[in-house]
């Protein structure tokens, strides 16, 4: 896996004063989640515990077979009142929406466009690619996390849940490198511990949490109850 260097890039700030004000009360703009084996149950556990008022967009990569349809999004939608859908190319990120990476595409976060010869930062959106699989995975967690780290920077929360390979370890490190909050599910509470274990070993996890503690922490983080003490 080639690691694309994170860097201290300028990042999105809204033009609208009201939006800016609203944003100042929150410490984060986006949550990204990566998982593979055992991921459905882990994701259900988290989504069930998030209140309908949860205001951060949540973008999920769950490894699955190339031919899969939108069953995963429908199953997740059944356990939460938050709207859940498969990611569509160029869709703007909406507060409280849950986006699932479609099978056989990479999913990235985008905030830059060219205006003439110069780049301009705008509201973050979703971008799909069919670039080659990374570490046999498409969607790849690393690709999502690295693009999110670049587009969002420190106002980003990255979470690695149960899974049977090491995808996401580099990506979680990239999020930590730009100052974002990073969480790995406690391997002991993971149906398949390899993925959180790899993320922890790589050094990207700020917090290691039991599955049932993750949703309550997200609620705290999004309500701006400060960056948590590391326990």
């Amino acid at each position, binding site marked *: 896996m080639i690691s694309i260097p994170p*860097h201290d890039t*300028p990042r999105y700030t809204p033009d609208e004063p009201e939006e800016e004000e609203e944003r100042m009360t929150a410490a984060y703009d986006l949550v990204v989640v990566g998982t593979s084996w055992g991921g459905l149950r882990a994701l259900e556990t988290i989504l069930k515990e998030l209140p309908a008022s949860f205001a951060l967009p949540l973008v999920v990569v769950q490894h699955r077979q190339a031919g899969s349809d939108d069953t995963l999004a429908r199953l997740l939608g059944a356990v939460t009142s938050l709207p859940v859908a498969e990611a*569509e190319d160029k869709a703007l990120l909406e507060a409280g929406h849950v986006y699932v990476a*479609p099978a056989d595409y990479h999913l990235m976060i*985008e905030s830059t466009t060219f205006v*003439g*010869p110069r780049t301009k930062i705008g509201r973050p959106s979703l971008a799909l690619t*069919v670039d080659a699989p990374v570490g046999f995975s498409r969607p790849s967690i690393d690709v999502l996390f690295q693009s999110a780290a670049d587009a969002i920077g420190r106002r980003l929360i990255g979470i690695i849940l149960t899974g049977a390979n090491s995808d996401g370890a580099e990506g979680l490190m990239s999020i930590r490198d730009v100052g974002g909050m990073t969480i790995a599910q406690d391997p002991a509470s993971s149906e398949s511990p390899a993925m959180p274990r790899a993320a922890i070993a790589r050094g990207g996890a700020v917090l290691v949490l039991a599955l049932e503690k993750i949703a309550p922490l997200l609620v705290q983080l999004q309500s701006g109850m400060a960056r948590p003490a590391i326990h």
Partner: protein
Amino acid sequence: MAETDPPLAEAPEESGTVERVEIELLLEGIHRLYGFDFRAYAYSSLRRRLWHRVYAEGLKTISALQERVFHDSACMERLMLALSINVTAMFRDPGFFLALRSHVVPLLRTYPFIRVWCAGCSTGEEVYSIAILLREEGLYERTRIYATDVNELVLQHAKRAIFPLAKMQEYTANYQRAGGTRSFSEYYTAKYDGALFDPSLVENVLFSQHNLVTDRSFSEFNLILCRNVMIYFDRSLQNRVLSLFHQSLVTFGVLALGRKETLRFTDHESAFDSLVQNERIYRKLGPGR
């Protein structure tokens, strides 16, 4: 660059980073030196592909890549390939090809002569898939397929009609799920580790270089396929390309996009209606809309 653009030196970067400036300068230079404009490509994937190229060339920075690209046209060719190649598969998304058979083929049957445009055909997997489908539906003899890509190298690959033998198991499964009516192995001959496809499948195919960013409409089509190509473009370029497709379609002509692309929120939403909603198959509406 337009004359009204301020010179770069006049406006110091507010919060620009080195990398951002490097990418801006590289793309500006490629446009001026080689005529290819990548500045309306989707930034995240472009950035990722640029870094892959930096490492593959054994370099460390995007400005080092710029130095090489500007002075070595072979390096530009490698970069061009990296930026424009789209990985695809035969009968990718079998459900889409099923919908083509059930909803689009009946429309095509009503035309005495059928023109199909595979825009951004890359290495040709989709072209062969369409040719097979049209042959099985008895339409191939009166069809001409225009297969275009910005990249000359991938077109040469597509013309060679040789695909990795190791892929045939996956393609056979796709073909069967796509409603294929024969044995997929009838369409190719195994040679070493390659599968050589029946040359008669491309008898009515015209491969040619065409740049969706800068080139114009060149014919009138009954069906345009452009799947997972515009995901690499930003919104403004998508809108321009959709205008090109709209101009290039007959009234009630069919436009097929990738499974997760949509006309919603584009300038052309009202110029098309949806023929098969979940497969993103659209039909151009008549004038007066």
